[in-house]
């Protein structure tokens, strides 16, 4: 339980930021496209759809980016299990 009831109440009154059905549809559409591309073996948006068996390739790409000074979120997500992003 939160100790400061008044602040909790105030912050709980922050108005909603809607996650619209239209946005959800757009995301699902893109995910389905990615899944379809993966079945056809073609890369999507420059990244091959990967399963656990291809995570080694993802990590190798990330190492290259880190060496090159890159710092994108995909790479930080690749090390998520250690919470060391």
């Amino acid at each position, binding site marked *: 339980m939160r100790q400061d009831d008044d602040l909790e109440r105030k912050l709980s*009154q*922050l108005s909603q930021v809607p996650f619209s059905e239209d*946005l*959800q549809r757009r*995301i699902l559409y893109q*995910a389905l496209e990615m899944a379809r591309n993966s079945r056809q073996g073609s890369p999507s948006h420059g990244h091959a759809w990967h399963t656990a068996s291809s995570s080694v390739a993802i990590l190798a790409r990330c190492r290259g980016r880190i060496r090159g000074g890159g710092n994108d*979120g995909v790479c930080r997500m690749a090390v998520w299990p250690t919470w060391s992003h």
Partner: protein
Amino acid sequence: MEEDKHASSEADVRFLEEWMNAFGADVIHLAYTYVNNYHLAQDIAQDVFLRAFKNMDQYRGEGSVKTWLLAITANRAKDHLRSWAFRHELQDPDPLENVSSVETPETQVVERLVRDELWRTVFQLPLKYREVLVLYYRQELSQRDIAQALGITEESVRTRLHRGRQQLRKLLEGGDTL
């Protein structure tokens, strides 16, 4: 083997849909907390869920999905705030001027958010206090989960919560500008 892969993709899409139903509002709310712009928050939420979808195999079943998604959201939002495009955007002194005169559900949302006094107060807080206050009070994450999500220590979370509460209380009670 190939059939397994197809089944996996379809199952992943179903997972994605369930995650969006369960956590979509949390993700876009946190994104908005960072960028103070509904359209950017939508872009970030889209990016977050597609990244989670692409990396689903690695993370399914590990810890709290909500905490994981909110951590990705925080990272993506901060990346955006650091980006050249965001830092070089011309800041409009009156955001309402950007609201279209044509009424649509989206313009209504933008107008409601821009006019919301409580949001305006929260946006006066420094980002490091704003993020922990929203994650703790609004998203109801534990201090430990907040520390993990933001990559900081639990002690830092406690300190920021304390200072953030002080500043927010002052703003809410006195209407001071920080």
